């Protein structure tokens, strides 16, 4: 046995820990199992959404997202569903940007025959650093991309290293000594509590990419010099609650960038703004290039936006039983601003 990742957590029972009583092995075992599960059970990198974009026969479209994966990730699963635009199967090639491995798939026409494909992509090395991931679809026949999602493949077992954070279950069996070593026993559990506090975050919050193209029906765009919402309305965000202290407040930061370009050289200054129901706002200001570029620059930190944290006393977790909605607005002084992707995630930086 090693640092196995169980099917579900088994939170230790607080009533078994009392002053004057020994702390039983089962308490340590439950804590180890719960922490291994929290870090290894598979986080969502790209919450599912509907790009709802058409790709013509022989057309190609690239989707891009900024993410901060868990260090524990060794594989990720891309899940997309595609519909043929004609009453026959439509062929397309799918190529994840990191592995570069192309596979051919087919989309059906009728909604009830909607074809879902799952492509597992191996990562080259473990890392929790911010990175761009994505994929390219090369369509042989005309298709519509109906949904996209990506999650980290759950682990069978974690390594008992400081980075992977796994706890060897053998080390917490009855009559084992209590000692202080990474990945083992009481000391390892204390270290993994700190590791898991960051690692067990909810990675993807909102990831919308319509493909890097300026073709009508793909990226969202505006020519407005005043703020313009190119979406149907607002969509909610809710963050993990970590600390229940006055200084921690009732909001936490999520991180965000946009992938944008101008239609032609010499555009005016552009802004992308998020306004939350809780009153927080965050604005990314830039002068767009004619090539697709992430803003703010990936050479520096992403922008932050304060969103409500969950309330564990509420049946659905919403603070004050209200949705904390995000409204996206764009503007450009002159020219046309295209936005291909909006990426929002929980970072390791504020955990």
């Amino acid at each position, binding site marked *: 046995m090693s640092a196995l990742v169980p099917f579900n957590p088994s939170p230790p029972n607080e009533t078994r820990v009392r002053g004057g009583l020994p702390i039983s092995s089962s308490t340590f075992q439950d*804590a180890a199992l719960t922490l291994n599960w929290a870090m290894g059970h598979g986080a*969502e990198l790209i919450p599912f959404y509907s790009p709802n974009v058409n790709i013509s026969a022989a057309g190609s479209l690239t989707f891009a997202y900024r993410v901060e994966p868990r260090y524990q990730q060794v594989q990720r699963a891309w899940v997309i569903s595609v519909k043929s635009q004609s009453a026959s199967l439509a062929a397309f090639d799918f190529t994840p940007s990191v592995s570069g491995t192309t596979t051919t798939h087919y989309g059906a026409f009728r909604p009830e025959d909607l074809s879902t494909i799952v492509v597992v992509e191996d990562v080259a090395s473990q890392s929790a650093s911010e990175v761009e991931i994505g994929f390219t679809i090369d369509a042989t026949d005309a298709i519509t991309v109906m949904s996209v999602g990506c999650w980290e493949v759950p682990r069978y077992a974690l390594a008992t290293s400081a980075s992977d954070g796994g706890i060897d279950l053998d080390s917490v069996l009855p009559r084992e000594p209590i000692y202080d070593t990474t990945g083992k026993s009481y000391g390892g559990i204390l270290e993994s509590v700190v590791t898991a506090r960051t690692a067990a975050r909810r990675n993807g919050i909102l990831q919308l990419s319509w493909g890097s193209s300026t073709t009508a029906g793909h990226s969202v765009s505006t020519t407005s010099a005043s703020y313009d919402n190119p979406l149907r309305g607002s969509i909610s965000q*809710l963050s993990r609650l970590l600390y229940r202290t006055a200084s921690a407040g009732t909001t936490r930061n999520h991180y965000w960038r946009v992938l944008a370009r101008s239609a032609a050289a010499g555009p005016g200054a552009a802004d992308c703004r998020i306004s939350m129901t809780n009153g927080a706002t965050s604005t990314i200001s830039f002068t767009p290039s004619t090539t697709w570029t992430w803003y703010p620059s990936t050479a520096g930190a992403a922008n932050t936006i304060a969103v409500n944290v969950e309330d564990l006393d509420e049946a659905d977790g919403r603070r004050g039983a209200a949705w904390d909605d995000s409204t996206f607005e764009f503007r450009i002084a002159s020219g046309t601003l295209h936005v291909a992707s909006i990426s929002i995630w929980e970072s390791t930086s504020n955990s």
Partner: protein
Amino acid sequence: MASSVNKAFIRITAAQAAENDPCDAVIARDCIVNNAAHIADEAGQVRVAWIARDNEYISTGTHDVAYDFTHVVSYGPFPLSIRSDRTSYRMRIRLRGHYSGSSGDAYLVLSGDSDVTQAIQNVTGNAASFSVVSTTDGWITPDGGSNTVYMSEAQVSAATGVISTLDAVGGSPYQAAICTAYVHVYASTGVATDQIRITGVEAAEFIGS
């Protein structure tokens, strides 16, 4: 059913957990029991987050039979988070849309099956119904008012299988047990040529109160 006593993370100083210090009941209760439980309580993931671009929607299209539930869109499969009682984490859901022609109903279903159209009238805890009664687009209040759905222990068991997973980067394949699930949206109207138009879906895991 938050499992942590304090429903929050408890800070300690490094000195309280220093090498060679004894493991007292306070450190064990706060640092190990409470904090490990709270990490799991807040480990739910956002599984679906979509809002359509302006003037865009996904619809039932023309369906064959009035009042027949028609598939609109599906999201998944994804690895559903399971609680210690072997039911799923509660899914905080939201559906946005409007109708064209005549009003109707929409269903959001959390299921391990890739298609549940035929069983949709029988689902209970893992589905929510929405009366689509406006031509103005917006988020729709679920019938009954509850914003959460979940899969029972039996449904979780039926949706559990194994997947191949690596033990390290470039490592050996092993099998891991996971419960995979989908979020499906179905809709119907009283006139077969009318449409329910869906413009936003949210589904986020939450431990439940």
